[in-house]
């Protein structure tokens, strides 16, 4: 037997959330969901949590366990206890709690609905099935298996800072159509996704890739859409910033804050953010104006070529 700590909150009765401890059988092979079922069936039937398939495919049972979100049905309890010395189960983050471990996912679904999550047929719909090169179909692989469990949104630092940001699951869904040969609205999609709260608002923290229980790579999907948007010539503050950033690195191997800010924000934009500049000056953290190229510039160039070649291979197959 070992102790599990569970987040409890019933807004109808409780003023504020609390944690409750239960002693449960945590022998090897038992999942976090097994433990919650033990509690619900044998000790406290009021404990609420969503679950269904118990085989990591329906996406019902995502929770925040020992600091990371994942599916409780496929999380082995003992290794977590052994690693951290405790086991704490909480509801997902970035979504309001409705009862115990059940969160309100309306905001999650709203974001998904916002990206037009359905195929928009192009002009030439064949009589039979589409003929799509395998390599093109494989482009969808990093996103197509998303089970919409919400784990990525729970960990998303950009969503935490900006509740209007669409978030990783919605954007992975967006990519799944933007990269689909059969979709006829790619340009319109990329333009829409390039607007505020879209692909350029990801702060690339990588948590979404890391926690996804079925190895969807939302951040990779977002990055690919950035490339696609730049290639399509869709200008946005984000794309301008990325291009400026790339240029300055290729020049000196260093970030030139002045030229980058000028290119991505413009003079007016820079004036709008002058408070940041003031703060920088007051703290005496003024960057050098002329950047001397770093010693390993040759390697920087090699790296850039390598990345470029890899990208071409992927998109032109």
């Amino acid at each position: 037997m070992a102790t599990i700590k569970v987040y409890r909150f019933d807004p109808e009765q409780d003023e504020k959330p609390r944690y409750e401890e239960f002693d449960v059988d945590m022998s090897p092979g038992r999942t976090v969901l097994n433990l919650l079922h033990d509690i619900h069936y044998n000790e406290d039937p009021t404990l609420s949590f969503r679950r269904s398939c118990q085989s990591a495919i329906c996406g019902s049972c995502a929770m925040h366990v020992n600091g990371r979100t994942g599916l409780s049905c496929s999380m082995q309890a003992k290794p977590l206890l052994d690693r951290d010395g405790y086991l704490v189960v909480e509801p997902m983050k970035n979504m309001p709690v409705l009862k115990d471990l059940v969160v309100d996912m309306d905001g999650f679904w709203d974001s998904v609905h916002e990206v037009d999550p359905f195929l928009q047929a192009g002009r030439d719909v064949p009589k039979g099935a589409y003929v799509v090169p395998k390599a093109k179909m494989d482009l969808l692989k990093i996103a197509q298996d998303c089970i919409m469990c919400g784990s990525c949104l729970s960990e998303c630092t950009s969503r935490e800072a900006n509740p209007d940001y669409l978030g990783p699951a919605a954007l992975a869904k967006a990519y799944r159509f933007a990269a689909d040969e059969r979709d006829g609205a790619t340009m319109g999609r990329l333009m829409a996704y390039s607007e505020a709260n879209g692909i350029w608002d990801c702060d690339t923290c990588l948590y979404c890739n890391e926690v996804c229980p079925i190895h969807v790579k939302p951040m990779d999907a977002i990055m690919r859409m950035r490339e696609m948007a730049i290639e399509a010539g869709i200008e946005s503050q984000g794309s301008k910033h990325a291009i400026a950033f790339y240029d300055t690195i290729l020049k000196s191997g260093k970030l030139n804050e002045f030229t980058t800010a000028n290119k991505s924000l413009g003079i007016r934009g820079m004036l709008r953010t002058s408070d940041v500049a003031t703060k920088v000056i007051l703290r005496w953290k003024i960057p050098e104006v002329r950047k001397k190229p770093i010693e390993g510039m040759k390697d920087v160039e090699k790296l850039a070529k390598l990345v470029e070649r890899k990208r071409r291979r992927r998109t032109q197959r």
Partner: protein
Amino acid sequence: MVSDMNRYDVLVLGGGLAGAMAARAAAAAGADVAVVSKLHPLRSHTVAAAGGINAALAEGDSWEGHAFDTIKGSDYLADQDSVEIVCREAAAAVVEMDHLGTPFSRDETGKLFNRPFGGHGLPRAYFAGDRTGLSLMQTAWEQLVKKDITVYNEWAGTSIIVEEGRFAGIIAYNVADGTLDEFQAKALVICTGPGGQMYGKTTNAVTCTGDGLAMALRAGCALKDMEFVQFHPTSLHGPNILITEAARGEGGIMKNAKGERFMERYSPKMLDMAPRDIVSRAIQTEANEGRAYPEGYVDLDLTHLGAAKIKERLPEVHEFAVNFAGVDPAEKPIPIEPAQHYIMGGIATDNAGATAVPGIYAAGECACVSLHGANRLGGNALLECIVFGRLAGTAAADFAQKHAQVAGGAASLAADDRKIDGLMASEGKEGTERIRQELKKVMWEKVGIYRNEPDMALAVGAVNDLERRYANVRVGAKNKRFNYALLEALELKNLLDLAEVIAKGALIRRESRGAHARTDFPKRDDANWLTHSLAWQRGSRIEITYEPVRITNWEPKERTY
């Protein structure tokens, strides 16, 4: 407790693949539609279907070939006109889903890729990795979003209202706040999926409690062929997670504890690719005769496929084996055992999905047309959801156009209200979980892979006894929000009602056919039993009647593989 009344032309109960396709079809036919679903559509059990969807799309294949394999697989219990409809529509169904966006796997030339499935003469299962159900479900749900169809998520149906012999509406329980509400409509399509949770070992989700089946039975619909329950041969030993048939389709081989390829004894021609009923019985026989591992499992060996092919074609199998059994299938065999997987029977419908009660339609696993007869072939269930989901949705919309709304429902709402209040107030001594566990045990042991008269008679008695004990059940949680303890009590009643139908139907059918294997009547008996069972609720009793199988082109023959 009663809040606003919701009125539609067509209601769809259940948002899985059949439900979503039915709702889309009904909306396309001009009906005002809403889906009422215990789970968000993307949480439906459809997503657990892994391997594929059948269609005679490949060169050299024909819908007749698909139909013959299906009928033979059904042990000649399928209604052949229904099989014809599905197999003729299959190619168009797969192409339509591709046009709507399902990311089907492609071959090197960019065309749809297929693979072999058990019981089929040719490879005709189309797939998206080994997440075909998930992919098709996504596509169907995307269409609900596109067509802006209202979905009531996490509303569990409790009753179907029938007035003047016709459908009038449903009562549903809102899991989020514990309220009951009435939904009125002119027609209903029941698409609530599986009900395998009455079995101890099952690949079904915990939410698969046959709610729609039990509601339909109480509303006056017949349940057809419920004694035919499919046991999937390859579930992961222990948690009974489904290891898709595609694992064998891609070349996986089963071996017993002595390392023998035991299928050579049971199906010399098709070996591991024999239909599910035959393979499950083979494994059970190996276990009964002491050639399985002591815990009752056998090996599914994929090691010769190599890590690359396993990860490319069977990523989910790889994942499950590693995460739930601690086995890397590229290095060691996967321990597998049979588990309940599918119910061939269901709400009796005609070829348009209509039931015995005007205005009530059904499609998908909860329905029985019958496409699968006594045994379902892999890859036919997803197909059924699409083809019959669409047909039922269209027929329901048509019915709604021609008929006026039937009034009344207040009495049903009040009755369900009393039922829930009674459960909540009960100070009885019985716990739902104990009854559920006892039910699972008795159904697995007595109405399982191999059956006989004394076992099943005992099971009928035990289920009746559990039903009596259910009257004393106490719900330990009194909270309103997300009271899963109450929901489980409601679900348990459905499971008990269905278990009784299954056990009784199985006890009466004195033959072996498809998945219904009796040790005391080991032969198929076409002279007496080439018939469908129909279970009806008369008062508090179950009455079973019989009707003939519809045979068109394929005369029943001995079924060997």
